C-alpha cells in the first residue's frame, strides 16, 4: 500500500543523463541502458537473456505477456477469464476518478487489469499460471485480480493442475476499499482448497511484492521462489522509517534477506526459472512421470549456478 509510494519515489531518481547519440539510439530502442550498472546492451541480446542485464545480472521488469512466453511452451498458452473487467464500486475519486484511471491504464498497457491468467504446458507438464503486471496501477490487487486468481486456482483444483503465480504488486488497490482487502481472504480460501486436494502451489516473487499480496498468496506457497534482489515485504520502507525514525538495515526486504530469514525456499535467476519450475513440478508428480523431463530433454540434471 504505502510501498507504492516508495516505488514512485524511486522512479523519480533515475539515472543521470548520457551521451546524446547513444540516447537517441536508446530512444530508438536499438540499445538499452541498464538502470543498475549503466552498461549499454543491444536490446535484442537483452531480450534473449530474458531482460537480465548480461553485465550485472540486474533483473529488469518483465511484462506479463513476455513472462508467459518465458515460462510456457510455445503455442500452449490458453488464457482464462479475459472478459472480467474492473468497475468502480465505490465511485472513488481522489485527485482523479478511479474510472478514468482505469481507462488510462487500460489504453496505456492494453491490459484489462493487473493480472493475466491461463493454462499452458511447461516442458510438457500442465500448469495453471497467473502473472501480475506491475505496469497496471502498480500491480495493485482489486476485485479483478482477486476474482481471476480465484477462478484460476479453482480451475486448477478441478483439473488437478499445479498453480504458479508470478507476484509483482504494491499491495491492495485502495480505490476499491474493503473489496480490495477481502481479495486477500478470498484467494487464500481458494488456495486452502487447492492444498486440500494435495496439489502444488509455487509463487514466484518478483520485484516488488508488497503489502496485501505478501500477506496472502505470495507467502502461501508449498515452495516459494524469488527473483534475485526483488523487494519483498509487508510494510513499505517509508512507513517503517517514519515509525522508527532509524535507518533500515542493509539489504532489508530483499529476496536475499527473506532467504536468510527463512521465508523463501530459493532465489532463482530468471534465466533458470523455467528449468527450476519444471524440475519442481515433475518432482511433485511422482505418478505423472517417472523420469524427470529434464533428463528426457537434456540428459542431465539442472544446474544451480547461472549460465549466461
Amino acid at each position, binding site marked *: *500500500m*504505502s510501498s*507504492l*509510494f516508495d516505488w514512485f519515489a524511486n522512479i523519480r531518481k533515475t539515472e543521470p543523463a548520457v551521451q546524446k547519440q547513444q540516447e537517441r539510439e536508446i530512444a530508438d530502442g536499438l540499445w538499452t541502458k541498464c538502470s543498475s550498472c549503466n552498461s549499454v546492451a543491444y536490446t535484442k541480446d537483452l531480450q534473449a537473456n530474458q531482460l537480465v542485464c548480461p553485465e550485472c545480472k540486474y533483473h529488469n521488469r518483465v511484462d506479463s505477456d513476455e513472462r508467459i512466453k518465458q515460462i510456457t511452451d510455445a503455442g500452449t498458452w490458453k488464457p482464462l477469464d479475459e*472478459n*472480467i*473487467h*474492473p*468497475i468502480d*464500486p*465505490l465511485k*472513488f*475519486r*481522489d*485527485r482523479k476518478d478511479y474510472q478514468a484511471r482505469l481507462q488510462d491504464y487500460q489504453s496505456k498497457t492494453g491490459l484489462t487489469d493487473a493480472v493475466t491468467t491461463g493454462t499452458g504446458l511447461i516442458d510438457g507438464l500442465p500448469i495453471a499460471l497467473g502473472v501480475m503486471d506491475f505496469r497496471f496501477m502498480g500491480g495493485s490487487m*482489486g*476485485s*479483478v485480480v*482477486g*476474482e481471476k486468481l*480465484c477462478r484460476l486456482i479453482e480451475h486448477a483444483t478441478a483439473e488437478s493442475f499445479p498453480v504458479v503465480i508470478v507476484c509483482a504488486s504494491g499491495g*491492495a488497490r*485502495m480505490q*476499491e*476499499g*474493503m*473489496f*480490495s*482487502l*477481502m*481479495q*486477500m*481472504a*478470498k484467494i*487464500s*480460501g481458494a488456495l*486452502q*482448497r487447492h*492444498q486440500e486436494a494435495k496439489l502444488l502451489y509455487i509463487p514466484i516473487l518478483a520485484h516488488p511484492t508488497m*503489502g*496485501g499480496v*505478501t*500477506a*496472502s498468496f*505470495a*507467502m*502461501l506457497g508449498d515452495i516459494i521462489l524469488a527473483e534475485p534482489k526483488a523487494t519483498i*515485504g*509487508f*510494510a513499505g520502507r517509508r*512507513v*517503517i522509517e517514519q*515509525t*522508527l525514525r532509524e535507518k*533500515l*538495515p542493509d539489504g*532489508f*526486504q530483499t529476496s536475499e534477506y527473506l532467504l536468510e*530469514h*527463512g521465508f523463501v525456499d530459493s532465489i532463482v535467476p530468471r534465466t533458470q526459472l523455467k528449468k527450476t519450475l519444471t524440475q519442481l513440478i515433475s518432482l511433485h508428480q511422482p505418478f505423472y512421470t517417472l523420469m524427470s523431463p529434464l533428463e528426457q530433454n537434456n540428459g542431465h540434471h539442472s544446474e544451480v549456478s547461472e549460465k549466461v
Partner: protein
Amino acid sequence: MSKTKKKTFLLDFEKPLCELESRIDQIKTLAEENQVDVSAEISQLEIRADQLRQEIFSTLTPGQRLQLARHPRRPSTLDYVQAISDEWLELHGDRGGYDDPALVGGVARIDGRPVVIMGHQKGRDTKDNVARNFGMAFPGGYRKALRLMEHANKFDLPILTFIDTPGAWSGVEAEKLGQGEAIAYNLKKMFSFDVPIICTVIGEGGSGGALGIGVADRLLMLEHSVYTVASPEACAAILWKDAKKSDRAAAALKITSWDLKELGIIDGIISEPSSGAHANPVDAAVKLKQAIWKNLEELWQMTPQQRKELRYQKFRNMGRFEIVEAQ
C-alpha cells in the same frame, strides 16, 4: 474514601452534549442540597440532551466516526471479555519464543458454554498503550491466535475474535519475523476449521492486521466501529499526496458499519448505546453478547461442512467487476 479521578477525554463533537449533561447533574445536586423541586426543568433538559445526542450521532462524518472508533475510552477486547464471560483464563505465547501483548486470547465460558476468544488489545491508558503497542500485533501475535484457533478446533469450541487494531505492526523486527507470512497463513488456515467462527470489529479494523483474525462464518461490526483497507491517513498521503485530507479519504473508502453492510462485506451491525459504547460499556457488552449468541445459535444448527462452505462462499462472493462479452 478517595474519589477515583475519572479521566475525561472528549472528542470535539462530544463536548456540547457533555456540557449539557454535566449541567443537568449540577442542577440536580444543587436542587437536592437546597431541597427544591426542579423535576420539570430537569426532564426538559433531559429531553433536550436526548435530542442533541440524536442530532450529533446521526450526523457524524466518516472522519468523526473514525475518531469515535479510536476513542481512548472505547471498551477493548479484555473489557468485553470480562463483561460477557462467566469464566476467563488468558492463555499466552506463540510457542515460537514470543507472547504478544497486543493480541490476547484464552478460554472462556459464556452462559455456561465454553468458547475460545481472541482479539487485538489496545491499552487503557498511555502507559498501557505503550506496553500493548497500541494494539498493533507482531507476527507472534498472529501465530498465537492461530495456535488458539487450532486448539478451539481440536476441542470443538467456537472461535470468537474481536478486531481492534490500527494495523499490524510495521517495523524491522516484524518484517524479519515474517509479518506477511503470519497473516497470510492465518487467512488460509481459518478456512479449514470445522468450528463456528464469529469475528466482530469492536473499534478499529485496520487493514491486513485486522483481517489476520477476520475470516468468519459471520462478520459483525459494532455500530461505531470502522473497517478499512488502509488507514485514511495513509490513503490520503498516497492518493491525495496530503495526509491532512484524511477526512476525505475516510469518506471515500467507505469504512463505516452502515456502508460495509450495504456493500455486503459484513453480515450484521450491533447497535451501540446512543452516545457510543464508551458512554455505557455495560450496555454495549450486553448487546454484543446477544448478537454473538444469536449468530452462534444459528451456526450450531449447521454441519461443519455447511459452515465451511458458507465461510468459503461468503468471501468468494466479495468483489465487484463486470463480465464483458467479446464483440
